[in-house]
């Protein structure tokens, strides 16, 4: 036994280290969020928080479910690839509650020129006009039906 006569010193040091180790483990468990590491080296709940953000744009599939008549007109014209909310604005609220949230009809005077005003940076094949000269003060809707603005409706290419 004489060989370990000063072992008490070692036991005290070991106890301090053990206590430190336990304190570290307890603190670590308390501080790190439960979802950390759920999907990778980050807080898993952050993904859920980000993906729970409410929608403003319902998506054209939702619109087409209730408005197949518009889809039919649109799919035959040159605006087939333009989605509903690109012109009508965000309408997720209308999709959730169609009766009480009634969308406002967009003002064609501003809407059409957004895309079709002449600009040298636009691709050359894209139909663009000098609105003042082209429409001569008339509304675009006089000649063009926005859902299917065929060139035969009075407008020139």
């Amino acid at each position, binding site marked *: 036994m004489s060989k370990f006569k000063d072992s008490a010193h070692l036991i005290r040091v070991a106890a301090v280290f053990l206590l430190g180790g336990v304190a570290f483990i307890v603190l670590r468990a308390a501080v790190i969020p439960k979802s950390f590491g759920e999907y990778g080296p980050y807080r898993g709940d952050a993904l859920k928080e980000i993906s729970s953000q409410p929608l403003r744009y319902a998506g*054209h599939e939702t619109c087409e479910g209730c408005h197949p008549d518009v889809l039919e007109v649109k799919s035959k014209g040159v605006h087939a690839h333009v989605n509903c*909310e690109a012109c009508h604005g965000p309408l997720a609220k209308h999709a959730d509650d169609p009766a009480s949230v009634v969308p406002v009809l967009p003002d064609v005077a501003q809407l059409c020129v957004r895309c079709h005003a002449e600009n040298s940076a636009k691709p050359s094949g894209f139909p663009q006009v000098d609105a003042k000269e082209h429409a001569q003060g008339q509304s675009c809707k006089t000649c063009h039906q926005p859902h299917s603005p065929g060139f035969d409706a009075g407008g020139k290419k």
Partner: protein
Amino acid sequence: MTLNRRQILLLLPAAAVAWDFVLAGTPDEAPNYKTTEHWWGMLLDITKCIGCGNCVRACAMENNVPDGYFRTWVERYHVEDWHIENPSVDSPNGGKDGFPASDKTGGKNFFVPKLCNHCVDSPCTQVCPVGATFHTADGVVLIDYNYCLGCRYCIQACPYGCRFFHPQRHTAEKCTLCYHRITKGLTTACCENCPTGARQLADLKNPNDPIHAFLKTHTVQVLKPHLATGAKMFYNGLDGSVR
């Protein structure tokens, strides 16, 4: 291949770490969505962009982006034939209100829509001192707003200038690739509202995605490829002058 005891012991911790990633799967919010089955990118077709600003407005509306800050924006390039390395670029209010007719003559003009490139080796993620920016298993770079200290290192690190400091929340902010939409099977707000199809969300892990056919038949480029960030925003018809 034979392993001795020492090698097996060395491999054990690595296996333990890897197991967490193997178990990684589905966020509760979208029960049918598996993060490991997708790999998101986007196709931006410069030959189709008309600079209408629909994407910028839609993004601001969908994500409550404060005025004067942009998660996506559109730039107009003017390149003179004799000075291709020095284009002049303008982006009035990020292109949110469209572009007035150009007063520049000669050379060529075109629009370049920009947004977070959701890089595979993103510099912003590497510099974050608190691990608030991370990569999801489906290839999206996101920010944990609870962890972000607002130190702005990432804003400086992004070579594409895609991040900004949110004036109210006081954290870094960026494009989430509409993570709340793509996990529900919808496309992003910018792609949904692009009238010409110049922006198309692409799932590179989906073999039926039209992106694969497009990439095979077109010469696409990413921005600043020399930085090797692994950008996933593919530009069709990208001019050499674009930075």
